[in-house]
Structure formats: C-alpha cells, structure tokens
C-alpha cells in the first residue's frame, strides 16, 4: 500500500511541477465543463437562441398574413422576409437561416374550405445539415397553423364564409338528397346556427374584445407540459441541473486524457525500467498510477461541482452525488489506463485517450442528446460510460433515483474500472 501511495504522490508531484500539465489536467476540464454546461442550457430550453427562418407569403391573404404575423411574434422564431424565393433560398444555402417557409397561393382558400375537408398546406425548404431544427420547425408551424384554424370557430364572419365555401364544394360533389348529403347539410346548418349565436353574444357584450382571427379561446387539444420534479423537493429542475451532468462528463474525460499517457511518459523518461525492476508487482505499479489519476479526477469534479452550484445547480442528494463522483472517477481512470496499454508513445496514448472517449461520449449522449440520435446509436448507448456517468449525476441532482435505481450506474462504472484495470495489468508492455 505504501508503494501505491508513493507512486500516486509521485505522479501528482510531477503534475504539480508542470504548469501546463496542471492547466490541462485540472483547469481546462473545469473551463470546458462550464462552457459545455452553458452551451447545453440552450438545448434544454433555458435562454437558447431562436431559430432563424425566412418566410415568403405568396398568398397575400388575411389568413396568410395573420400566420406570418404569428411567426414574427413567436419568441422561438427569428423571421426574415426576403424579397423573393431565390433570395430566400440563397439565405438557406449560405447557412444564414435554417429553412425557407413558403405560404403558398391558396392558403387562405384552404382555410376557408376547412369544413369541406381541405388541408391547409405550408412548404419549407430546409438546410440539410440542420434536420434537427427542421423537426422542431414542423412542430412550431403546426402549432401556429392550428391556432389559425381555431379562429374559424370563434370568428362568426370567418365561420360563415367557411361554411358557405363548404356548401358550394359539397353541392358539386355530393347529392344533397342522399343520406350523406343530408348529414353534411345538417352539420353545416348547425355551424350556421353557432355562428349566429356567437354574433348575438358578441353584440350583447359590447365593449368586450372581439374574437379575432389571430386569437380565440377555443382549442380542441391542450397539452400541459410539466418538468419532472426533483425527487422529493417538488420543484422542477433548472436548466443548469439538466446541463451540468453532461458538462461534468466532459470535464472528467479531459482529466483522464493526461493520465492515459502516464506509462508512455515513464518510457520516454527512461524511468519505466526503474519501476519494472523494482520488487513491486505489475498490479501494484498500475494501482499507484490509477490512484494518482483518481485523486486528480476527484479534485476536478469537486471544482466542477462548486462551479455548477455557482451557476445555479442544486443537488438533491449529496451522498448519491459523492458516490457517483467516486464511481465515475474510478471507471474513467481505469478505462484510460486500459487505453494506455495499447500505446507505446505519449502521442499515441494521447491520441487513443482522446479518440475513444470522444466516440463513447457521442453514443452516450455527451454531445448531442440521445433523442436526436438514430435508433442504432440509442441502442448501443448502454455501452458508453458517459451515459451512466450522466445518468448517475442526474440521479443525484434532479431525477430522484431510489437507492436501488442508483446501484446500476454506480455498479456499471465501478465494474468498468475494475475490468479495464485488469486489461491494463495484462496488456501493458514493460519492454522497450
């Protein structure tokens, strides 16, 4: 045990004597994690940038103008109106906007044919590199279009016009003496009655604000979204609570990269021969190396926790957080040592130490949220220690995991560390 501690202390002393190494092992991970946390806050919905889109209204009708107006006033969209379609397409091609939304000719009429089964159609030409935003845009346009539809049920004049259009379309396609024709006729009569009733109510309530095409209180479906409360605290998670775990995983990775090249550095210095000709076992030597890396990782994560709390993160369960920090540090350091076993030079070890964790971070949701990833990535994410580190930290901060649920991420990370350590012991080449 004395030798393991001596090796660890020696590594930490060597680290402390190299200012650049101190920055990249301790300081940079903290900065990187905080930067990542701030960047991810946008994706989580806290102060993120609005989506840039261009909009062309080719219909120039009252309904289309109202729809464009709704887009311009929506806080999640930043709308520019180009002079023409080609200018709009150029904006997309140059990456200035995510999509060109086109309100085609006939949009207003389509809205008028709402009760005749006509579909309102919008078009969008999207930047192919921003497909995720295209998905968000589709949802937003549906929401705004539906808002326009709802006005048909609250604006008597609009309803009358829609009903009249529908009757004309029906007359051209269905015989009104048939059961089907009579059914639709009755339906339109009911709508006409509703319209007259709405007009009467609005006339009686003079001075009350009328229902406009852009407003209205009727909505057949209302979706109430609530964030999962934080354990027993009955409060929603903040954006820092959500973004910090990913930032922490990145900080951890930055810290272990340095220790992946520890053995290669000993080989370069020539001191590896002194380690290997000592009476210490291979496991003891590696244990000392792992301990040094572990201590450095715990220090980094401690600094990250302090930084995160300054940014507003609130920890729901401190014992769990301490446990997952220790398990994640053990897992990542053991893993980096296994990677180091496959490199003979510092450059090789550094390259492997960066490349492999980078891939694991991607498939583990450490870069793009898993929700945006292809199904294949989501299926294999279970093999990524990033996923479990993030999940465990989330569990301690806002997911409110039970002790039984918490055992899984801790166990996986500890198991990864132990297995990786065993691989390193077996694989590490002592010879020049």
């Amino acid at each position: 045990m004395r030798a393991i501690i001596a090796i660890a202390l020696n590594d930490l002393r060597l680290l402390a004597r190299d200012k650049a190494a101190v920055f990249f092992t301790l300081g940079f991970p903290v900065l990187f994690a905080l930067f990542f946390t701030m960047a991810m806050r946008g994706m989580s919905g806290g102060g993120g940038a609005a989506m840039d889109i261009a909009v062309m209204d080719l219909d120039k009708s009252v309904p289309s103008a109202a729809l464009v107006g709704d887009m311009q006033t929506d806080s999640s969209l930043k709308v520019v109106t180009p002079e023409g379609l080609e200018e709009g397409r150029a904006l997309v091609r140059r990456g200035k906007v995510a999509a060109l939304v086109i309100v085609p000719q006939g949009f207003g009429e389509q809205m008028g044919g709402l009760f005749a089964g006509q579909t309102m159609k919008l078009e969008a030409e999207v930047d192919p590199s921003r497909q995720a935003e295209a998905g968000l845009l589709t949802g937003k346009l549906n929401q705004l279009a539906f808002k326009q539809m709802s006005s048909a049920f609250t604006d008597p004049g609009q309803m009358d016009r829609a009903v009249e259009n529908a009757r004309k379309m029906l007359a051209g396609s269905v015989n009104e003496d048939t059961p089907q024709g009579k059914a639709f006729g009755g339906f339109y009569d009911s709508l006409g009655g509703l319209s007259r009733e709405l007009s009467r109510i609005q006339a009686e309530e003079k001075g009350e604000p009328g229902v406009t095409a852009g407003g209205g209180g009727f909505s057949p479906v209302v979706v109430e979204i609530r964030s999962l409360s934080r354990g027993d605290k009955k409060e929603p998670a903040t954006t820092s609570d959500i973004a910090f775990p990913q930032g922490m995983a990145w900080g951890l990775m930055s810290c272990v990269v340095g220790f992946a090249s520890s053995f290669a550095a000993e080989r370069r210095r020539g001191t590896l021969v002194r380690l290997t000709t000592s009476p210490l076992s291979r496991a003891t030597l590696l244990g000392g190396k792992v301990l040094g890396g572990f201590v450095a990782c715990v220090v980094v994560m401690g600094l990250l926790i302090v930084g995160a709390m300054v940014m507003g993160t609130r920890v729901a369960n401190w014992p769990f957080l301490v446990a997952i920090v220790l398990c994640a540090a053990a897992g990542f350091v053991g893993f980096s040592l296994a990677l180091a076993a496959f490199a003979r030079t510092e450059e090789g070890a550094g390259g492997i130490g960066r490349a492999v964790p980078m891939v694991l971070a991607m498939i583990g949701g450490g870069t793009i949220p898993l929700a945006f990833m292809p199904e294949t990535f989501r299926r294999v994410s279970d093999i990524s220690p990033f996923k479990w580190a993030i999940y465990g930290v989330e569990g301690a901060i806002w997911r409110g995991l039970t002790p039984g649920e918490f055992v899984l991420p801790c166990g996986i990370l500890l198991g990864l560390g132990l297995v990786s350590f065993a691989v390193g012991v077996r694989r590490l080449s002592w010879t020049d």
Partner: protein
Amino acid sequence: MLELVEVKKSFGPRVAVDGVSLSVKTGEVFGLLGPNGAGKSTTIGMCIGVLRPDAGSVRVGAGGLSPERPEVRRQLGVAPQSLAVYDELTGRENLAYFGTLQGLSGADLRERVARTLESVGLSDRANDRVAGYSGGMKRRLNLAAALVHGPGLVLLDEPTAGVDPQSRNSILDMVRRLASGGTTVLYTTHYMEEAEKVCDRVGIIDNGRLLALGTVDELVGRFGGESVVRIRRAAGRGESDADGAGSGVTTIRTAQPIRELERELATGTVASVTIDRPDLEAVFLSLTGRSLRD
C-alpha cells in the same frame, strides 16, 4: 552471484544476443566490453528481467533464481544507459522515491538517501531539481538511484557515457569502492581503459557473441600479441634496429619485454626506453579484425 547459460535474444530477424554464457562471482567487477550494438544492453536487460531470453537461462543470487522474482529484484540495482531519473524532481526526491519502490521507509530511507548522495558527490545539490544538473551530475544521480537500497548486485550499462573526465573518474572510483565493499558489479562499456582500470575480469562481446573471457592479463597474454620495446641508446653508438634499419632506436617485439630490456641494458648504455604492451584494443582487433571504435 549471476549466471547466464546460453542465453539468446532476437528482435525480429536481428539476433542481438547469441548463446552467451558467463558467471559473475560475488564481489567481483565483471566487465562486458564491446562496441555499440554488440549486445551489451540486451544482456543487461535479460539480467534484470525486463527482457525474457528466447533461449537459455539467467540465474541471480545464491539461490539461482530468475530475475523476474520480487525477492531477486530487491538484490538488484541497475543504472541504465539512458538516464532514468525525473528532471522535475530534486536529486533527493528522486532517490527517496526509488528507495520507497525498493521497500525503504522512514529514517532508514532518509539516512540511505543522504549517504548515497554523499557517495556520488551530490550532497550540495541534493535539493536542486535534476533539470538543472550537468550531464555528469545526472549520470552520478543515475548511478545513485541504483545504489540507494544497498543491492548485492549492481548492473551498470555504460555508466560514463557522455560525461566529463572528472565525473568519469568519480564514477570509476565509486565502482572500485563498491567492489571493495563486497558488492558484485556487472559493468558494460566500449572504453577499454575503463575495463582495464576497474574490472577484475572482462568478457569481449561482439555481434551478440562472447568471444573471450578472462582477466585483462589473461586476455592480453592470449590474444594481444607481443609487446614492442623501443630502446634509444646514448649518442654515437650508431646502433641500428634489430632489423638493421640504422635509426638509432632499437625496436624489439617480444612476449617478454622485461627480459629483453634487461638484456639490452646489459649490452650497452640505454638513453630511453618505451614499452608498448598490448591492450584490450589489440585483443579486440585480434579477435574481430576491427577496432573497438570502428
């Protein structure tokens, strides 16, 4: 103390050590003399267990055990040809760390570190970082790291490579003191002067093969050829060389230079005498057809 039996080691198609057998007695300084690339460092590597022989065996200590065993490694001290110290640490920190790896601790560790630094002449620079040491000082620290735990067998691989003459003499003195204290030393070098100065026995190695083994006198006597005695007589004698060249200097090649000198002294006035005895350079030349420094 150390025995190698027909050890062989290859790296791919290149045979680095080809059937070397030797034994080093306890308390002896054994020199392995050969040019660069002869197989000296590979032999050292097998003796300390970092390289595994492809064939043959290496046995260390009274028990004749493999150098890979921890109890054997405690008896070994190695000063590799490439410096093996931490530039970022001080001399004292280096020795304390290496001593800890060897199982030392507490007051015993501190005392051994201080004594070892004193023995290699680095006490006054003990608390300075190694990065600021001269090449000779780093070599001495490299040697000290091999000695701090008091091993019974010390393996020194070209310990004076690249050092100044003062540091070289200091290291050679250190080796002689070790031997006089009972420590066994395996010393590799390509400098014949060092082998002649400090080694009790020398093995000549080239291209992975041990060509000859014995004391310096034995090797010179067997392979070094004859001594050359040059006698300059007093002026006026007009003596010629033994071969009749008439230069005033008599040159005699003989295996018994002292007897020849006595004979010449008896025949006339001798103004000056030089005797060039064969050395290990001549031995190597005789064995390989090449100079040590080719």
